């Protein structure tokens, strides 16, 4: 039995210690905002924040997570509310999610779960990134590039700039 904090809630987990986080989240805890892409840490679709840093849930075993804090896309809005010290409002999105709506970023959208996680990590460290910093974050900073098969990279870049504005304004 392991204990991890997922999207602000402490959860007791029964899965075996070698179980990759993605199956723990989706199958045992019912947290579905993490998607299966490659199972090889090559695409970034399954990214989650672990203590604020992006990791790949498909290759991270439960044993490495005891006592850690996991945030998925499902928990981004609450994360933002906590950071701003305001009550969680189910009608409000995290600025990154809101920017993704404003800029109509997703096509099929399966990669965007990992994209939004990576961009949240980026903006928490670099509030006003340049195009080069965005490309670097989404291509070189993790175990692999974050891949989008639909080719929505231009929309993603627009979305990051929009999110930066929304975050600077302090609201979404």
């Amino acid at each position, binding site marked *: 039995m392991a204990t991890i904090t997922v999207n602000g809630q402490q959860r007791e987990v029964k899965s075996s210690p070698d179980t990759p986080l993605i199956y723990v989240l*989706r199958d045992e805890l019912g947290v579905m905002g993490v998607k299966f892409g490659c199972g*090889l840490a090559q695409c970034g679709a399954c990214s989650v924040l672990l203590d604020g840093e992006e990791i790949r849930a498909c290759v991270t075993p439960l044993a490495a997570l005891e006592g850690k804090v996991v945030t998925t896309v499902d928990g981004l809005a609450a994360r933002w509310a906590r950071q701003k010290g305001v009550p969680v409002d189910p009608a409000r999105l995290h600025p990154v999610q809101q920017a993704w709506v404003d800029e109509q970023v997703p096509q099929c959208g399966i990669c965007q779960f990992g994209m939004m996680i990576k961009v949240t990590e980026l903006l928490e460290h670099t509030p006003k990134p340049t195009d080069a910093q965005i490309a670097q974050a989404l291509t070189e900073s993790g175990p692999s590039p974050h891949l989008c098969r639909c080719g929505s990279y231009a929309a993603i870049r627009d979305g990051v700039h929009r999110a930066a504005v929304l975050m600077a304004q302090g609201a979404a």
Partner: protein
Amino acid sequence: MNSQLFQFGGAQPAAIDIDIHGARLTALSRRGFLGTSGVLMVALGLAGPMAAHAAPANALDATQPASWIDIHADSTITLRTGKCDFGQSSIYTAFRQILAEELGVPVEAITQVISGDTDRTPDGGGTFGLLRNAGGNLRKAAAYTREAVLTLAAERFGVPRAQVSVADGVIRGGGQQARYGEIVAGKDLRLTIPVAGELTSMFGLVVTGNPPLKKPADYTVVGQPVTNPIIRPKVSGETVWVGDVKLPGMLHARTIHPATLGSTLIAPGKLDASLFPGAKLVRLGNLLAVASANEWEAVQAAMAVAADTKWSEWKGLPGSDHLQDHLRKGVDWSQTKANKSNASKGDVTATQGVKQLSANYFVPFLKHAPIGPTVSLADVRPDGSVTVHTHTQNPQFLRRALALMLGIGEDKLVVRTYPGPGHFGRSNGGNAGSEDEAVLLSRALGVPVRVQWMRADDMQWSTQSSPMTADIRIALDAQGRIAAYEAIHSGPPMQDDRPIGALLAGLPTMDAPHPANPSPLHTTSMNIADQWVYGAVPAVLETGRGTYQIGEKESPIRVGLRDHSMRTPIQFQQNFPREVAISEAAALAGIDALQFRIDHATDPRVRAVLERLRVEAAWDSRPSPAPAPKARAKAGKAGTGVLRGRGVSVMLRDHGYWACAAHIAVTPATGVVRVERMTLVVDPGIVVNPLQLKRQAQAGCLMGVSAALHEEVRFDQGAITSVDWQSYPILTMAEMPELKVVLAPASGSDIYGQGSESANALAAPAIAGAFLDATGKAIRRIPLTPEYVKLALRG
């Protein structure tokens, strides 16, 4: 195809029975009405409007299609379509706009879109040509509906129909007004519209007849940048994707596919019950699978069993390194009748010209490569009923294939469709892969089964986009104009719609492509899909030569490299060589590549997009190659120099005119090509939604850059060796060029513009043209990887 009018069941007397431009508007008695406050349904309901709404998840009376358009008493509207969405957004944006426009209501009135469920949608057919085909259907269905409601309104107002009009949801006439809902309230109305076709065929149903259509000049909703309402639930995490579906008592399965595309199972590996106590091993012919209530156990047990499984050896593929040679020399092209294009004219053999270009071009196998591998669920019940949950572009055709596999009636099957990773045409023939396996495993195990393919399964066992080779000869006259153009396009056509699980299990499927396949779409015949745009060329001969799927006849399990449509299918494979050859011919003639195209185009819309491209791309008009002797010399000597060039391509597809300019940088020493700038100009006809079209074109263009720079399916003599993102790399964000998309619709068009498909195809020939411009050397294949670039520079 027989034209048919839907007849509504039930013996209730009709209080209303009106002919509406060939459609039939009827009302059932109150007794036949199931308790709503009134509704108008278009096409055939199940048993009544509420039955359609409340169809249970395992409804088995799926033989009858549901309503196309439901007008509710509160004036909200439900739109139903058998098409699905894999990122285009069309069914949630353009479709609602088209419907709202014809009805004369605000787009917000269409509050619900039901898509892709075989028991809840009316039309079937594949998700392709969404605006061209399905958009036209919807436009007509909406026009019939508007006419029906306005006819009733005229009766209510006591004025002739001609005095009744509708705008912004309000129907007016004789000084009175009413909303749609008020006209249908308290009635149980059925509008039967004429359709042709077959529900579970590849193409589904087509609306026929000629209802009066709103004039495009009067459009107010079509043309607006309507946002996509499904994005918010997707980014918040609320959307239920196909992979998120959980069925009570379901098992997670992983299939273990053969060692090669021709291997048979000799001995299954041992499933160690002490290591995997909850796992079960299932064998169905050459299909092997492990299932467990615990997904991670299923993954591990499948890997352990796979490592211990014995398959027969098989070598029946040419290998990707030899594919181009195989297509040129190893195929008997006489087995399938060749086709000539409609553009063929004059006597090409009589024209040698003053200068001549003669070359061979090649497009390799490409993968649809969705970011998430296919996943689906099936629930086969003891009573023989089957429900499949999947992400498919053609759910009705999938239903037909699964019924054939199981030997049961189509009425026993329901296919439910969910969002999933885009697969760009792969499932237009029904299956994306895994659906049939889920059904077979559920039947074998007696419980619902979820089959998730792993990355390698998806790369090795899904279909791919066909390869093609082209022999092109261009003769130039003394003025540098094309006197003759001759092209022979040779390859296996799309599409092989046989589900892989059914093949491995030895169960019935439709035929593999062969010359006499009773399904005309599934023959070995190769048509010319690339529309000719150079009308001024006096002699043209374009020939298509088709063959069997590579390795299929050699494989004991009849698998081989199965093909399926992927964006601009076949047209891309033919447009790439044509447009590269045209750029080469322009260089040979010493004429600017863009001007050369204008000089040979006769259609003013082709010329217009090229003229506009010249401005938008800041195109420097001059012959190729680029005048950069110093840079070229430096690049050759020091090995570190960069050569820059620009290229152009044109495509006419679905009445849409597309032109593209690529600006690239080539480093000869490393063979690295960097795409620096892409400019697209499109005249698609009517732009239904400029916001979504622009996003689609941007993304499609980048997918095309990905194919141009990186993509080739590698395989040895038995199996695909491109198994993951390292062995099948795609474009990353760091490689994204500067992008400019210009919408330049010609006025007066009556045709809805298609989306990003053409954007996808334009990149590769423009980039190859830019390579010729930059280096003075032609590159006649993709991808432009360092390996092939260095070969081209030597040649």
